[in-house]
């Protein structure tokens, strides 16, 4: 298969071609890059939803339930609940990218997220792809963004991206996704954990999964307290409006939130779910839809797109410039600079200054 074939087959809905393109892109091959070039014009339509949180909080099971919900919205949430949103919501094609860690010692990986997603088997509107991190530390793989672009071009309207079990610092997902869901579970730490920097800050939606376990109130309270600390009190008019419109916190994620004034900040709702039986999943899907509507009505969607593509451009530019720079160096020049640093004759900064002064861009 040539690369042009691959891209056009992907656009035509060929699942084998899609799977192979994903591998080529993941491996960074020339074929993969050409396919990406051809597919890029078709991207930008999908809603990218990141799901992150510590190991064992139930991310995969939640993804399984969410995907099922999107495949059969009417059946899952009942007609009464849907009356407020767009009626006769069509089934949406869902892609799942599930990331698990690569062993730093052997380079191997066990990708086990599909175990929890067996309910999705046999549905042609769902495509699940497991990825190993291959050395990336941010919770997703370096190629996850590119893989998501291919799935976007292939016409999946919703792409759920599940990170590795992430604790505090694995926040790359927030740069990739439009909507980031942080999943917690009862019993995983005290309220100091909840005010540390990092993963909680990136949440657009907070989920306390395993809500049938004891301690769910404590977890929820700690999260709410932490969010309360994080967000400065709003002007009275706004908070009153919020109360009138939305009452309690859960209600603040109603779709009417989308008509909120553009200056109103999004406050992450805290939702309870039980991923094993699907409790709370319809509400979670509503929150995701509400967040999308919020982003679209406030211009946040465009901002996130811009930020994401800028990050990608910067990264590619860095890689490319570094490669070009290395090709300008004389044989052994880099090694000599490194040796100088090793022997403490020059600092790393001096080494870089010297190299760049001699071979700087444009010189």
């Amino acid at each position: 298969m040539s690369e042009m074939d691959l891209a056009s087959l992907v656009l035509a809905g060929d699942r084998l071609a899609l799977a192979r393109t994903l591998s080529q892109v993941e491996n960074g091959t020339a074929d993969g890059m050409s396919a990406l070039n051809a597919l890029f014009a078709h991207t930008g339509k999908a809603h990218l939803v990141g799901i992150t949180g510590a190991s064992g909080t139930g991310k995969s099971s939640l993804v399984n339930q969410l995907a099922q919900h999107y495949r059969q919205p009417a059946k899952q949430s009942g007609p009464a609940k849907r009356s407020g949103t767009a009626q006769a919501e069509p089934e949406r094609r869902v892609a799942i990218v599930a990331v698990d860690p690569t062993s730093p010692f052997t380079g191997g990986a066990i990708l086990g997220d599909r175990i929890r997603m067996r309910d999705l088997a046999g549905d042609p509107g769902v495509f699940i792809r497991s990825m190993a991190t291959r050395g990336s530390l941010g919770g997703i793989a370096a190629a996850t963004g590119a893989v998501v672009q291919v799935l976007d071009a292939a016409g999946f309207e919703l792409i759920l991206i599940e990170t590795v079990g992430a604790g505090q610092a694995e926040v790359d997902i927030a740069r990739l996704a439009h909507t980031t869901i942080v999943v917690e579970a009862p019993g995983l730490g005290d309220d100091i954990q909840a005010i540390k920097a990092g993963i909680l800050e990136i949440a657009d939606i907070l989920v306390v999964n395993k809500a049938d376990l004891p301690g769910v109130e404590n977890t929820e309270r700690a999260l709410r307290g932490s969010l309360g600390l994080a967000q400065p009190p709003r002007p009275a008019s706004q908070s009153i409006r919020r109360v009138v419109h939305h009452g309690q916190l859960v209600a603040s994620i109603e779709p009417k939130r989308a008509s909120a004034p553009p200056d109103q900040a999004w406050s992450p709702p805290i939702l309870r779910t039980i991923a094993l039986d699907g409790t709370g999943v319809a509400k979670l899907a509503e929150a995701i839809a509400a967040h999308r509507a919020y982003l679209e009505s406030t211009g946040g969607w465009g901002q996130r797109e811009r930020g994401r593509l800028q990050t990608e451009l910067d990264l590619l530019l860095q890689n490319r410039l570094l490669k070009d720079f290395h090709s300008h160096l004389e044989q052994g020049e880099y090694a000599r600079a490194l040796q100088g640093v090793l022997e403490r004759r020059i600092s790393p900064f001096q080494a870089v200054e010297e190299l760049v002064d001699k071979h700087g861009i444009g010189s």
Partner: protein
Amino acid sequence: MSERKIRVLIAKPGLDGHDRGAKVVARALRDAGMEVIYTGLRQTPEMIAEAALQEDVDAVGLSILSGAHMALVPRVLELLKANGQEHVKVFLGGIVPDEDVPLLLKMGVIGIYGPGTLSDNYVNDIRKAVVGSHA
């Protein structure tokens, strides 16, 4: 980055009650630097073929303890082929009577590894089969 990893699906078709052996194999392949997709117990051949397609794997390892291998293995091979994945190498673990071994090999199974097999055996066989078909 551009290094090509061997991707293997480890699957348990049928109604077996435990997956100890499958996990041992998955772990050994991981330690050999491969990416192993493990899908858990009680998979149908259709689920296995679908996962193999979506994950674009190079090999599929089937663990069968129930004695149903002569029904399950041909079905998996058939579905892989129907999906355009005849290049995928299929190997087998579990309990397989000696008299079935030549039949399964003839169907295209690359190796059958019962209890007590050293992991080097299947690791090397898989690597050879996969790398050979890409050369």
